[in-house]
């Protein structure tokens, strides 16, 4: 330390850094010990095993230590730490301080490795004969994750990025030559307003638990190959694979809920590369899970099951690389930029890819691959086909999402499709159609062999019923306007819900252990129904047919069919009701709680008799800050059958953080302020006289001698007179009191503004001989009146999406319980 800085709290950082190094060392020691414990065939010697366990405990405890230190730093606003400074600020409420914790990449890794430590401890407790090989792999991954947080230079390259990096080390600035620099850094950068949402408090931990949990089935698969216990690893891995698929799915949907609630692209899924990347592991895990069950029940498809489970973890690593390496560049709005960890992230993938490939190749001759073909009319065959299609769907997502990666490798300049959303929607819907139909009719098949006649009859009957239900649904929801493939997905989803509904009904009669998959499939079907209807038939409420603009070319053809040629944004003046999409909408006014500006928008719907059938106020808000600029946050009214979504797209320029309220600002006779008004008109009036103005009139009620004016002490020689004025405009009454003052030898007057009417009043002169006063009236020109530009959308039946998700989670839970029971009986 060559220099002493005042006011820094270096202890928590040093302690935290020590914990990071300890967690790294612990993981390394644990991996090595478990390796030797696995290789050592002398069963009487448990020393390696014990060492491995203790080292893993050390890793876990150190991670808790890292997290505590980081939380301490953030909670106490120690802005000498870059992490605290970059992601939080003093005005942040405590629950967002918690989410500030995983705002940065380092926090993300910490969360990931923390969950893996938790899962590792569960495995130590539960895995029994699998503990040694499985924990070797888990610990080895822990080594990699800890290395991502090290932030230590080795041979000139920086390994990882530490959350305890000091601000003065992170940024070069002349201010840091001042030993007292901290007294100048009053506050942090603050959190991106978009992240200040309750979903951001629980979505990242859930998603990271999902990502972390993929390690368990992966480690079992590796351990099975390594230890040549090829068949045995499947059964214990199934409950973990179910857990992983459940949590990953939940995490992804929470992310889309967050996007729906707080972003303003107007939807829950935008096919952004980072979003896509988050479902790679989910798709592969769900596919792998199904093939695991196929193998368990029929002995078929061993290779595919193992392959998919190994691939699911590679996908976890790949999505982490996409999100963190900066490779996505201009294709994503969410991704982090490169922090010099590109090659570290790449090698993380390559090491585990190489390990998987190596084991698959060396063991290929010994794998229990069945030689005989499965029956065409068997459940295992069609489950297998379904899983393959899940894999293909992921293949397409990976292919298109990775365009920047291909450009990087092949030095090409390919851009994503211009109608990206349409491209993804149609291709992914085609896969969804195949998958939903398979989840339907495979329910009527049995493992090994099924009687064909009965199967065909039931399948056809259910297909017919599904078609009969789908047709009116498509007709009344307006889905028929969309591409044909979406109608087929609708049919497939309805069919799947019906077929699985039958299985559920049977399950409730006795075969209860089958309920899990049926419930999960029903949930999945409902999710698709909700997603299709709400995204496909979302209605534009803020239809703007006015305007001299250009033809509406910024819509995909599918969107154009819904919205027609209407423009999406509409401007409304304050207190001037406007009709749109069946509502009468009024912009009532705004309120500010810095840095948020809330805009009150009143929605009324009248029934045929002209009475108000429905009324609610939405408060979309805009955050204006010097750090983040202008950020708009939507507000949504949730109904059972639809949601009304509103957000602000433009506002008059907001003066940043006014230090005084408008009255005192005007009192200084701010000349700039006068520019906001029409040329003033002076009126000589006596008490009781009326002054007319464009939108009403005002009456001078009385003149009053004031004794105190704001913070100016008045002496006996001072005179202050207030004119009490009552203003009538648009059926409302307001009052105002401009003040005239003689203070010492000078004359002042304090203007008063009445914002709702757009008026400013000055008591500009006292004319004692006529017993009159002069009131100067400033009126805002029409076009200076407050306005907002907003966009409103209606999402029908979006609740199917959220409730479907919930049902799917319940289905997964039921399956986990069932498979766990099987585990105990084996």
């Amino acid at each position, binding site marked *: 330390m060559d220099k002493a800085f005042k006011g820094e709290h270096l202890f928590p950082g040093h302690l935290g850094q020590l914990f990071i190094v300890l967690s790294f060392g612990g993981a390394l020691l644990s991996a090595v010990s478990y390796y030797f414990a696995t290789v050592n065939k002398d069963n009487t010697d448990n020393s390696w095993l014990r060492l491995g366990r203790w080292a893993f405990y050390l890793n876990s405890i150190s991670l808790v230590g890292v997290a505590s230190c980081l939380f301490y730093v953030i909670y106490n606003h120690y802005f000498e730490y870059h992490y605290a400074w970059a992601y939080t600020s003093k005005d942040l409420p405590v629950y967002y301080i918690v989410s500030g914790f995983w705002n940065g990449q380092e926090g993300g890794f910490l969360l990931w490795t923390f969950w893996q430590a938790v899962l590792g401890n569960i495995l130590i407790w539960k895995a029994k004969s699998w503990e040694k090989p499985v924990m070797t792999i888990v610990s080895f991954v822990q080594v990699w994750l800890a290395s991502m947080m090290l932030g230590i230079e080795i041979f000139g390259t920086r390994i990882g990025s530490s959350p305890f990096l000091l601000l003065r080390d992170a940024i070069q600035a002349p201010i840091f030559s001042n030993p007292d620099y901290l007294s100048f850094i009053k506050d942090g950068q603050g959190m991106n307003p978009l992240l200040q949402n309750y979903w951001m408090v629980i979505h990242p931990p859930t998603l990271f638990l999902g990502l972390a949990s993929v390690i368990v089935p992966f480690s079992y698969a590796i351990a099975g190959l390594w230890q040549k216990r090829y068949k045995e690893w499947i059964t214990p891995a199934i409950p973990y694979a179910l857990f992983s698929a459940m949590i990953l799915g939940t995490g992804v949907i929470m992310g889309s809920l967050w996007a729906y609630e707080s972003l303003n692209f107007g939807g829950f899924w935008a096919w952004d590369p980072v979003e896509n990347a988050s479902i790679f592991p989910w798709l592969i895990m769900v596919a792998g899970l199904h093939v695991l069950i196929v193998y368990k029940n029929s002995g078929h498809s061993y290779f595919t099951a193992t392959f998919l489970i190994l691939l699911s973890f590679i996908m976890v690593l790949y999505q982490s690389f996409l999100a963190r390496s900066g490779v996505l560049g201009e294709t994503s709005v969410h991704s982090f930029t490169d922090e010099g960890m590109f090659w570290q992230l790449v090698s993380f993938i390559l090491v585990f890819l190489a390990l998987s490939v190596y084991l698959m190749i060396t063991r290929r001759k010994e794998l229990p691959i069945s030689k005989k073909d499965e029956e065409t009319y068997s459940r295992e065959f069609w489950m297998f086909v379904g899983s393959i299609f899940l894999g293909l769907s992921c293949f397409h997502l990976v292919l298109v999402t990775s365009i920047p990666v291909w450009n990087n490798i092949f030095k090409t300049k390919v851009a*994503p499709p211009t109608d990206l959303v349409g491209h993804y929607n149609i*291709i992914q819907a085609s896969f969804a159609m195949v998958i939903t139909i398979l989840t339907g009719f495979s329910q009527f098949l049995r493992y090994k062999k099924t009687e064909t006649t009965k199967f065909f009859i039931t399948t056809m009957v259910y297909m017919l019923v599904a078609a009969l239900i789908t047709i009116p649904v498509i007709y009344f929801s307006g889905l028929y306007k969309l591409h044909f493939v979406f109608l087929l997905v609708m049919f497939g989803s309805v069919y799947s819900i019906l077929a699985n509904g039958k299985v559920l009904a049977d399950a409730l009669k006795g075969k209860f252990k089958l309920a899990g998959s049926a419930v999960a499939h029903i949930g999945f079907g409902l999710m698709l129904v909700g997603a299709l209807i709400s995204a496909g038939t979302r209605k534009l409420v803020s239809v703007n047919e006015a305007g001299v603009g250009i033809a509406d070319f910024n819509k995909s053809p599918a969107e154009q069919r819904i919205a027609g040629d209407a423009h*999406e944004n509409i401007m409304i003046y304050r207190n001037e009701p406007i009709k749109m999409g069946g509502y009468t909408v009024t912009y009532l006014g705004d309120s500010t709680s810095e840095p948020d500006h809330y805009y009150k928008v009143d929605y009324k719907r009248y029934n045929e008799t002209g009475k108000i059938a429905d009324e609610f106020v939405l408060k979309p808000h805009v955050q204006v800050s010097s750090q983040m600029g*202008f950020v708009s946050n939507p507000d949504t009214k949730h109904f059972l059958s639809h949601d009304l979504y509103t957000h602000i797209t433009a506002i008059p320029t907001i003066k940043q953080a006014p230090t005084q309220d408008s009255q005192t600002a005007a009192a200084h006779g701010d000349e700039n302020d006068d520019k906001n008004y029409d040329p003033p008109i002076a009126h000589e009036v006596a008490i009781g006289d009326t002054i007319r103005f464009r939108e009403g009139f005002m009456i001078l009620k009385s003149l009053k001698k004031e004794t105190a004016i704001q913070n100016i002490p008045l002496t006996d020689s001072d005179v202050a007179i207030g004119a009490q004025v009552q203003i009538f405009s648009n059926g409302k009454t307001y009052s105002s009191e401009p003040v005239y003052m003689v203070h010492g030898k000078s004359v002042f007057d304090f203007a008063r503004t009445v914002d709702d009417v757009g008026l400013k009043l000055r008591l500009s002169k006292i004319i004692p001989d006529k017993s009159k006063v002069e009131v100067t009236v400033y009126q805002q020109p029409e076009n200076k009146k407050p306005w907002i530009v907003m966009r409103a959308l209606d999402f029908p039946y979006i609740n199917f999406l959220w409730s479907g998700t919930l049902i799917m989670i319940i289905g997964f839970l039921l399956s986990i319980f069932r498979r766990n029971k099987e585990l105990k009986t084996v």
Partner: protein
Amino acid sequence: MKKRAILGLVVIAVAIAVIITSTAQSSTYGTIADAKKTSSELHIIGHLDKKKTLYYDAKKDANYFSFYLKDTTGVECKVVYSGTEPEDFERSEKVVLVGKMEGENFHASSILLKCPSKYKQDKINIATAKPNSASI
């Protein structure tokens, strides 16, 4: 023929179909000069010319926004977008447009902004208390 073999062929066929569709629908990163030569949509990377006016007047048309973009070759072009001014537009350091030329103007169907990354933009804001001069 074994079912697995048929399935394998189906998988390969679907995979090839996916690759072909994705390649066919993929676009290119081009320049304004490229845009003038084609009638199909393409991606253009450039930056906002801050010296020229950004036009958005909600009172005249809440769905008309125009600005001038300088592409990577330094060629400039007026861009028209049917919508409001994107958030933080003036702070962007890089703009990615999707759209095509319509006469002299480039009609953007989507605008993606790359704002200066947090790590480069890091500027220390020195908070100095302003003296509250309450002069009347």
